[in-house]
């Protein structure tokens, strides 16, 4: 049984366009389904604003999905009793992109890490202190950091604090929302190492959100590519990188500048067709170099083309390869 | 700098810097300061010449009058050839309708006509008043409020008439008409050419009456020649002005006094001994000398100096702390030890200073005086509530509507069903009888009436129903170029522009 399963989850917003403008429907997340097994990492890639964080928020129940169901160990969240929900809240945690904004600047590290503990458990001072020290040790810090403020620590150290806070309640799943994109490359490596270690140690599941396909590939077992609120491709990470199917995934790979001048690839001259009238149907249509009439009419569905490798694209599935 | 313009060919003009505005120019209603303007535009049947103590009642629109022996019928013979500003002639019918309008509207000082049952225009020049009870109707007809005779141009609808007047229109017989009326801050008066007394001789022909609330501004205006006459400057400025060659200070009794009504129904002051004690504790001299710089005198009883019914030899409390202490001991409070409250009107400089000085004196007797500055509304609201919850001492001024002692003695100390101005809450039927009888005799047997008035005054002084603090003077300041200026105490703060003239 998957740890978490999302079924046809959507989140729609209405947003006023301009000061006097009309309200406009934004499909931040549109009809997505996936599942994640215990102890594995799911990578979620997509460009800014494609709905990654919104999906994470739905999973965390910070916002309610407009439609669809989220199952935790087979149970529908919306039908859970409050006790079970408490349990769920403890089991799913998050680490954000920017460690400086995800830690309250006016709290000491001690207060930050103890917050989840005291919120959920009655615990005396000495027990709390030993627990704090244990957590710090796990993430590679020590008790000297306890009475400091976030601004007195480096970005990497702060991200470790955020991770410590996330694992304080022994969760089963941690959602990592671009946990390294605000960090330097050299620090990123240490955090990625730490995450790998923790996963082994506690048999954690991760949902790793990023727009950097390289990083996602390194850490994930399974990758989902998202575009404009939709999943366009998903599959085992080696598959996705080795044999990308969706044009968007391909472009992500091509546009991703690998620091390897040997493989210096000329960027594809994906001529922008003037597709302003190409609305409806596939979400990627406007930027797609391979758009067809069919794409205009209907939205493609996710189809399993290889084992566990799904793609939503007419061109891939039945298109004539030019 | 801007003197290059030519002054129009006028014999004489005058600027009067007055202290307030003139909220309501309807002569039937006006009851505040409007007489300053109205007395120059309208005239009454009788004129009260306060400087002629023996025979103040002067024929004016009425040349003569008489009354029946019981005092219930009064006949006035009208002057002939008097014209209203619209050119029509003064007739008995106008008199009748003018006074009837005042009575009908029932606002302002209308109550002075309370005794009047009926007004008859006997012929064009004779008016007869039939009364319900005897009243001094000639005096009443000389009142500065509510007795002005308006002419036929007054709109017949009463409310419309009020609006008409307040647009700066008028319908009097007086020497001036409004040329320009800027509500709230100034009035320009120009001469009425066909005034019955004529314009030969020296008369002011154009007048600007400005309301200048700020005393500093009035002082500066008179010093700079911006105003020819003004009044009511802080006494502290008068010293300096005395040395000013261009101005003259004229001080006349104002018929206005400052009282500190003592609550006879409240704890402590319900005891006459304590009332007397605190009457002895008031620093009369300090107030007269320091605060008023001698531009006022200590009161003798409720009727102000110079007015009908004032007696110079009436008993008077003096500042005497020994005596006060003695009385307090008698009352059982040798060391004081209680608190009294005093209310006064916010913004009134004199009341404020008096209150503060008095507080310091009572302190010496061990009495705490709690001073409350209140707006008139709040002050009266408190005072008209339950007397046992009201203030102990209330500072306020009184002045007559028309010149009769009854006005003071009735309003201040006569028994009232509902409190209006008897803030001493003094209910004494003997007193009531004395003044009621005196009032009815006033028109027919003045001497007898005065005698009764005196008895009544002795009674209230004895009972210490009020602190009789000051009889105020009206202090007018005039440029020395202003001639013939003799203020008349019966018409508060009025300058009769027709009488004066200004050197060019």
């Amino acid at each position, binding site marked *: 049984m998957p740890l978490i399963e999302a079924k046809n989850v959507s989140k729609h917003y209405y947003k006023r366009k301009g000061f006097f403008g009309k309200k406009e429907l934004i499909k931040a997340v549109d009809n997505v389904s996936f599942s994640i097994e215990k102890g594995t990492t799911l990578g979620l890639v997509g460009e800014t604003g494609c709905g990654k964080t919104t999906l994470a928020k739905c999973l965390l129940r910070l916002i309610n999905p407009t439609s669809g169901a989220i199952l935790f160990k087979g149970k529908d969240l919306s039908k859970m009793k409050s006790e079970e929900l408490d349990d769920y809240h403890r089991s799913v945690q998050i680490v954000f992109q920017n460690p400086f904004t995800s830690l*309250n600047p006016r709290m000491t590290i001690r207060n930050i890490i103890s917050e*989840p503990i005291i919120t959920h458990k009655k615990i005396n001072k000495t027990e709390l202190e030993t627990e704090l020290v244990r957590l710090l040790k796990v993430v590679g810090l020590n008790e000297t950091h306890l009475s400091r403020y976030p601004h007195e620590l480096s970005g990497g150290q702060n991200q470790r604090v955020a991770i410590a806070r996330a694992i304080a309640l022994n969760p089963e799943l941690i959602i990592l929302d671009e946990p390294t994109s605000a960090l330097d490359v050299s620090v990123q490596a240490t955090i990625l190492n730490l995450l790998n270690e923790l996963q082994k140690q506690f048999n954690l599941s991760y949902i790793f959100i990023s727009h950097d396909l390289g990083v996602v590939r390194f850490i994930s077992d399974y990758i989902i590519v998202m575009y404009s609120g939709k999943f366009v491709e998903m599959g085992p990470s080696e598959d996705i990188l080795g044999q990308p199917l969706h044009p968007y995934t391909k472009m992500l790979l091509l546009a991703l500048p690998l620091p390897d001048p040997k493989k210096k690839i000329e960027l594809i001259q994906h001529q922008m067709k003037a597709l302003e009238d190409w609305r409806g149907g596939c979400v990627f249509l406007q930027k797609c170099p391979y758009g067809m009439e069919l794409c205009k009419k209907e939205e493609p569905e996710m189809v399993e083309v290889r084992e566990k490798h799904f793609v939503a694209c007419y061109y891939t599935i039945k298109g004539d390869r030019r | 700098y801007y003197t290059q313009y030519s002054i129009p060919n006028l014999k004489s003009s005058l600027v009067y810097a007055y202290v307030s505005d003139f909220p309501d120019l309807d002569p039937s209603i006006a009851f505040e300061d409007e007489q300053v303007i109205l007395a120059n535009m309208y005239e009454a049947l009788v004129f009260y010449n306060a400087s002629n103590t023996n025979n103040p009642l002067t024929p004016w629109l009425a040349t003569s009058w008489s009354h029946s022996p019981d005092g219930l019928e009064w006949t006035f013979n009208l002057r002939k050839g008097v014209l209203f500003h619209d050119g029509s002639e003064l007739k008995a019918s106008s008199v009748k309708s003018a006074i009837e309008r005042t009575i009908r509207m029932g606002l302002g000082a209308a109550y002075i006509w309370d005794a009047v049952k009926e007004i008859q225009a006997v012929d064009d020049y004779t008016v007869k008043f039939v009364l319900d009870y005897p009243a001094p109707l000639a005096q009443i007809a000389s009142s500065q409020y509510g007795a002005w005779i308006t002419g036929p141009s007054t709109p017949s609808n009463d409310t419309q008439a009020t609006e008409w007047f307040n647009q700066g229109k008028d319908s009097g017989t007086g020497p001036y008409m409004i040329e320009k009326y800027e509500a709230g801050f100034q009035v320009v008066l120009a001469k009425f050419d066909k005034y019955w007394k004529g314009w030969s001789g020296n008369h002011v022909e154009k007048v600007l009456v400005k309301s200048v609330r700020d005393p500093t501004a009035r002082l500066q205006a008179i010093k700079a020649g911006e105003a020819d006459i003004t009044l009511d400057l802080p006494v502290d400025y008068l010293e300096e002005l005395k040395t000013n060659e261009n101005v003259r200070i004229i001080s006349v009794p104002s018929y206005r006094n400052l009282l500190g009504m003592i609550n006879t129904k409240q704890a402590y002051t319900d005891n006459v001994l304590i009332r007397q004690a605190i009457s002895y504790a008031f620093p009369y001299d300090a107030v007269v000398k320091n605060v008023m710089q001698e531009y006022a005198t200590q009161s003798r009883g409720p009727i102000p100096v110079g007015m009908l019914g004032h007696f110079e030899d009436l008993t008077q409390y003096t500042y005497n702390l020994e005596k006060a202490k003695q009385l307090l001991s008698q009352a059982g409070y040798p060391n004081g030890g209680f608190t009294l409250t005093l209310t006064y009107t916010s913004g009134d400089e004199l009341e404020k200073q008096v209150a503060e000085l008095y507080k310091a004196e009572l302190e010496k007797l061990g009495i705490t005086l709690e001073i409350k*500055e209140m707006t008139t509304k709040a002050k009266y609201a408190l005072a008209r509530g339950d007397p046992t919850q009201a203030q102990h001492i209330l500072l306020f001024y009184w002045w007559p509507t028309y010149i009769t002692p009854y006005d003071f003695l009735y309003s201040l100390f006569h028994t009232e069903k509902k409190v209006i101005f008897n803030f001493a809450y003094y209910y004494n039927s003997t007193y009531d009888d004395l003044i009621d009888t005196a009032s009815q005799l006033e028109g027919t047997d003045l001497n007898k009436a005065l005698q009764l008035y005196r008895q009544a005054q002795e009674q209230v002084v004895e009972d210490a129903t009020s602190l009789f603090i000051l009889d105020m003077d009206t202090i007018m300041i005039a440029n020395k170029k202003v001639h013939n200026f003799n203020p008349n105490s019966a018409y508060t703060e009025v300058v009769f522009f027709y009488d004066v003239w200004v050197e060019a």
Partner: protein
Amino acid sequence: MNKLTLSKETKITLKLIKRDKLAMLSLLIITFFIIVSIFAPFIVPYPSQGEGLPVPEKRFLPPSFENPFGTDYLGRDVLSRVIFGARISLFVGIFVVCVAIIIGVPLGLIAGYFGGKVDDVLMRITDVFLSFPSLLFAIALVATLGPGLFNAMISLSITWWPWYARLARAQAVTIKEQPYILASQVIGVKGLTIVFRHLLPNALTPIIVQGTMDMSSAILAEAGLSFIGLGAQAPSPEWGLMVSTGRIYLLNYWWFPVFPGLAIFLVALAFNLFGDSLRDVLDPKSRKAGGQM
């Protein structure tokens, strides 16, 4: 365990303020007035006159060694009264601002954080209050409550709190999007706890700046009310009242109205300058219009 560690912001603030000579000067003035008002009865030359005891024989003495600011219309030492007046003005300032903050800030934070209907209702109410010309409203209020220092303070507080509600709401709306708030929500911390544990401390900076500036506005407003006779009542040594009483003596005995007014000016200036510096240092973006005496 709770070692006093100043947050970075506070440290920066202190340093910047130390460098800002005007801010230091204004702080000095404020401190001076606070000390002077606390110890007023012990340091003024004539304490009883400060409280209102008349000395009729010493009226209108010009400034001299004995009476450095001269004497007033009842012979009282103006210096003593001005110093006593500092107590009133500072108290008024603190009272009005504190009441406004205590009412406004929690409301604003709650509205901003919870949003939805709560927000709608609370903010419509503040909108209504904000749309009154505040001083006019305060005047109408005092005029009906009856003049007096306390009523004036109450009226000013009533007209003031919506500014804080709005400010706090704006803060809450931005801060609640901060990831650290989300993090606490994920942990399962309850709404009100988040408001007071996380939002409040982080929203405080502009509120403090505003509070400092409003000290001066409140003092000015109260002095203005007293000046027209709606605030403090004689013989209170309230500054506005003293200027008002002294006004008619301006041209002859200038010292009597001038010194109390100068005191108002100085205190208001000090608080405004200090607030201005604070704002420059902390919060260049917050701004507010209106509120003139």
